[in-house]
């Protein structure tokens, strides 16, 4: 099928399948999935600028479906999502400016590649240590007959002490978020959102691989709520990204609409599946995602071919 805006010939079934896979991951983990969509669109000959812009538009649609489903399951903190959107947009703008500065200095590719590899590997390494320790502690309690919680949404972390230490940082104004069950400094929320936005603008995509773990470990949210709220926040920040890319002529909305038909089913299934897993298990399953991102960057760095 010929798509006249980006002048690309793509079979719609390919777009639907890619959309489905990204929707599934997005619904389950609360990530945008650009580390799959970007290379998948590039692989069929789409220009890099169109791949980035069109992927953002598709992320908006997929996140609407997944966030609506998570909202129905009680997994979205709307108030927190709206506050975070402000910090994310500001961070994304700073990230984009940083990219321009490194472009002028002539070393943008090396800097972005090295930073992203370090970030991706660090997140995966930290999460595997934390979830391993959490699941081991749960097993020990179970053996001792002291099972703490039985609910599917029950959440626990071996790094709760770290979260508690961060929460002692009580710089006003303090915000109470009843849905997430936390009272926290507004500045801490803005910091998490800003850093997520910064990496989104700097490395591309929705940066859910940074935001979702940050919401769990720094803000102290249950994993299910972090996934749902991240998706809601992505709707706003990715809409902003779509607009800025569209006015630069980088969005083929027809391709995004076709991808979104597959993503709608995938996102629903992904969101529903979270009910059957506890927080630590969702986080453990999340670990390979940043590593896939790191592998793609290493491949690009070594071969010189941008996926």
């Amino acid at each position, binding site marked *: *099928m010929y798509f*006249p*805006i980006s002048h690309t010939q793509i079979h*719609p079934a390919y777009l*639907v399948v890619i959309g489905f896979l990204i929707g599934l991951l997005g619904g389950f983990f609360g990530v945008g999935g650009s580390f799959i969509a970007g290379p998948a669109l590039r692989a069929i000959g789409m220009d890099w600028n169109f791949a980035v812009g069109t992927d953002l*538009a*598709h992320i*908006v*649609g*997929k996140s*609407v*479906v997944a966030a*609506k*489903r998570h909202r*129905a*399951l009680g997994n979205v903190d709307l108030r927190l999502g709206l506050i975070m959107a402000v910090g994310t947009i500001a961070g994304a703008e700073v990230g984009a400016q940083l990219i321009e500065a490194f472009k002028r200095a002539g070393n943008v590719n090396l800097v972005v590649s090295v930073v992203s590899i370090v970030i991706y590997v660090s997140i995966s390494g930290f999460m595997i240590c934390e979830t391993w320790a959490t699941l081991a502690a749960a097993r020990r309690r179970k053996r001792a007959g002291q099972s703490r919680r039985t609910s599917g949404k029950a959440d626990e972390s071996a790094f709760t002490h770290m979260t508690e230490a961060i929460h002692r940082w009580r710089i006003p104004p303090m915000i109470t978020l009843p849905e997430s069950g936390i009272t926290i400094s507004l500045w801490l929320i803005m910091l998490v959102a800003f850093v997520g936005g910064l990496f989104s603008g700097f490395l591309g995509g929705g940066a859910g691989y940074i935001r979702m773990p940050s919401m769990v470990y720094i803000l102290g949210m249950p994993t299910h709520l972090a996934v749902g709220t991240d998706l809601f926040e992505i*709707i706003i920040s990715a*809409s902003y990204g*779509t*607009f800025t890319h*569209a*006015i630069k*002529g980088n*969005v083929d*909305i*027809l391709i*995004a*609409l*076709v991808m*979104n*038909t597959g993503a*709608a*089913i995938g996102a*629903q299934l992904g969101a*529903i599946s979270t*009910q059957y897993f506890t927080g630590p298990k969702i986080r453990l399953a999340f670990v390979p995602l940043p590593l896939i991102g790191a592998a793609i960057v290493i491949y690009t760095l070594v071969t010189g071919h941008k996926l």
Partner: protein
Amino acid sequence: MNPRSKTAIRKTLRAFVIELLIYAALVTIYFFAVLHFLGGWLVQLETRHIHTYALVAIALIIGQAAVLEAVTTWLMRLLRGGRSE
């Protein structure tokens, strides 16, 4: 696995396959409708009024997502006897 669980899984899988078939048919019709009716207009808009195109693009993707979510939820309810998850 006990026979009751096996039957439940078989029922869920059957419902999912039927959902996919109905959904695939709806989506195929939708592709041709969208590309036929909107394709030309969107290309014109993108070349002549880029800011309007940007806003229309966001409205279209959000609108489509809301409709698709409603359709998939309705299909799940229909085929699973009132349950959507």
